[in-house]
């Protein structure tokens, strides 16, 4: 079924219709490829900021060209996310990387921070591109293709700031009502989201802690190896095994580094993204509750005859449709999200386990070869003695 009730853009090309139906085979029928790279610093009189280059390659008919290159800054990404949330309040919009990380940040723009952010922004855009509904969003298309001045003028369109603020105030006021009448499956969903958020937060922290401990282990091992070489300088008969051990430790250090980099690529970004997804999900839940609350307040008004019954009934009819669409959209997207989550988490941990197996295999090989060399020597010496 078409869940695109709020998208101004209906899919037109046959290829994109196929895309919509086949959720699982998204990667096989991909016709939109996006990369985020080349962070660049811009200095103006007012501020300093970073832009990222975004390259889009597509075969879709609705795009004017097959390749686009634009530059965007974090603010632009924020704008896009806001527009998507507005257009699809009960779809699970992918999370953006944090605005800034307060803990442990010396300068706002150190290299690690920029690189982490770049990867996360790349993920953000690709998740949208892979989403059966969001991929056809008009603001998304503008974001990918418009030149800087075009984007500015496009941003100015749409509901003004004040009206948007007004909506928010009403929403907050009525959100509690929505919670009371929440259907059973959404109660379960909410429960899941709460526990999931908790656990993924812990997993994220544990993973970061492991990375930190590994780095410290690496640092000590780096100092440990060379001492054996130092010792070998004052020993004649022991120089060979001592140097052997030093070189084993050095190889283990290389293996540790590799394990760390595997962890930082396969596990840490995934866990962190899902921590942010926790907030996203709670936001989606809230918006759903708000839509429900709107309906509930009209129903209540009708019950207590607060206003014109006919008008209210008409409104209620529309709102009931709205609630049903919102709920269905969320239900479908929830299933999709859960499947993706399971697959991502499974991959991440399987990769982590693989990295560890590989690490231990490397270390094992190096120590076994050392042992062989020492015991072979021993046998050589023994046979020499017997001669």
């Amino acid at each position, binding site marked *: 079924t078409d869940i695109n009730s709020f998208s101004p853009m209906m899919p037109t090309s046959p290829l994109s219709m196929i895309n919509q139906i086949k959720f699982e085979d998204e990667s096989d029928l991909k016709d939109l490829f996006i990369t985020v790279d080349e962070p660049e610093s811009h200095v103006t009189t007012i501020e300093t900021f970073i832009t990222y280059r975004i390259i889009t390659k597509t075969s879709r008919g609705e795009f004017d060209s097959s390749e686009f290159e634009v530059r965007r800054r974090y603010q632009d990404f924020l704008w896009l996310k806001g527009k998507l949330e507005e257009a699809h309040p009960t779809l699970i919009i992918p999370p953006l990387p944090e605005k800034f990380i307060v803990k442990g940040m010396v300068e706002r723009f150190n290299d690690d921070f920029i690189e982490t952010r770049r990867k996360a922004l790349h993920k953000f855009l690709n998740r949208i591109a892979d989403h059966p509904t969001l991929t056809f969003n008009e603001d998304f298309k503008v974001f990918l293709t418009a030149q800087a001045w075009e984007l500015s003028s496009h941003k100015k369109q749409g509901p003004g700031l004040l009206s948007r603020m007004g909506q928010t105030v009403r929403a907050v006021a009525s959100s509690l009502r929505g919670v009371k009448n929440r259907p059973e499956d959404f109660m379960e969903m909410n429960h899941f989201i709460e526990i999931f958020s908790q656990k993924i937060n812990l997993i994220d922290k544990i993973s970061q802690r492991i990375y930190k401990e590994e780095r410290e282990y690496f640092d000590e091992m780096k100092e440990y190896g060379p001492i054996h070489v130092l010792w070998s300088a004052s020993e004649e008969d022991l120089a060979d095994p001592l140097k052997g051990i030093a070189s084993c430790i050095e190889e283990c250090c290389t293996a540790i580094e590799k394990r760390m980099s595997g962890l930082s690529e396969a596990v840490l970004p995934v866990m962190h993204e899902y921590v942010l997804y926790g907030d996203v999900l709670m936001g989606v839940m809230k918006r759903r509750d708000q839509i429900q609350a709107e309906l509930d307040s009209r129903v209540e008004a009708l019950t207590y005859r607060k206003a014109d019954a006919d008008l209210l009934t008409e409104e209620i009819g529309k709102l009931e449709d709205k609630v049903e669409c919102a709920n269905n959209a969320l239900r479908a997207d929830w299933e999709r999200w859960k499947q993706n989550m399971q697959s991502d988490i499974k991959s991440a941990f399987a990769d982590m386990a693989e990295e560890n197996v590989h690490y*231990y295999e490397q*270390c094992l090989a190096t120590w076994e070869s050392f042992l062989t060399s020492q015991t072979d020597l021993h046998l050589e010496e023994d046979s020499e003695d017997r001669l």
Partner: protein
Amino acid sequence: MEQAPPDPERQLQPASLEPLGRPDDDDLEAAVSEEAEGAQEEGSGVDTMTENNFSLKKIEISVSEAEKRTGRNAVNMQETYTAYLIETRSVEHADGQSVLTDSLWRRYSEFELLRNYLLVCYPHIVVPPLPEKRAEFVWHKLSADNMDPDFVERRRIGLENFLLRVASHPILCRDKIFYLFLTQEGNWKETVNETGFQLKADSRLKALNATFRVKNPDKRFTELKHYSDELQSVVSHLLRVRARVADRLYGVYKVHGNYGRVFSEWSAIEKEMGDGLQSAGHHMDVYASSIDDILEDEEHYADQLKEYLFYAEALRAVCRKHELMQYDLETAAQDLASKKQQCEELATGTVRTFSLKGMTTKLFGQEAPEQREARIKVLEEQISEGEQQLKSKNTEGREFVKNAWADIERFKEQKNRDLKEALISYAVMQISMCRKGIQVWTNAKECFSKM
């Protein structure tokens, strides 16, 4: 070829013996391996020893137990200390059965007394060191408390090792006081003190003085001193960093244990992933707890290195003795030379050296010839005595150098053997750790893949 970490006892070679009879090497090794397998916890070693220099028996020494005791110390205050049970068994040659011949309790301070006695009475021997008095090179999990059971256990092994080293030393094993240490429970301390060995000890100040002022020590001893300084410095550095590495490794393993707990809690809300998470979590727990045994084994390795760290001091003690004897010799020679010169000057009447007598003679007139004769006679006696002393000091010095150097060569071979085996056992430990890691993570990977 994999070997289990060897007990230090197993490495001890039989002492080379005087013609009284030589145990068959094969028999000895067979007995050692049998006992080592049977007594993994306690450890034991087979060595030979003379009993009152009359007969040879194969004996086994073990420090089999440690016990906390309370008692009153020298100033009549209550104190807690640990006592160690020393058991001596003699092995009947024919059937290999061992019979308990002696068993008594000793505390650490008595071991120290024994060692100090050996140091004074055998200055040319590299005397085996005792295990550390207080825990050093600790990493966070290890306790620095002397009463901690792990520390006590490692000390028990160290003390046993000390006794086995002494018992397998060709010269030290024959010492009567050592024999009594193993066999005479009461009054042993008094017996040792009665030997008056403390009087023979060289003062630290005298030794320091000699070290600075000696002119011609044997070069080999000077080199040995440098070697022992380097050994001490590099091994203590190694042990310090090893302790830090152990600390960090502990951290890495233990944090993974947190995954176990969280996976288990998470699995409660997951339908499809739940089982996979749960079993993966279990493997994380296994991984986290495996580090305890791994690091305990490494402590034994560290103890093997520590023994040689402490041996460095024993080496320096021998060098110091040489410097002392050499300095003594040089001083005596200098003395003799100056007396000879004095004598010559008196006899020929020339005054080349400054002396108070010379000055007063110049000022107040010459002395009478009879007085001069008397003085020459005294000097000649002193010179002849001095020459005798110098001769015997020379002989003593050469004997010392010869014997010390023989023991140092023996020590060097022992050290190379022991440390090489220790390094190999370290590699074996690493291999075992890697194998465990591969297994746990392979299992975890399977669980994750099935999620």
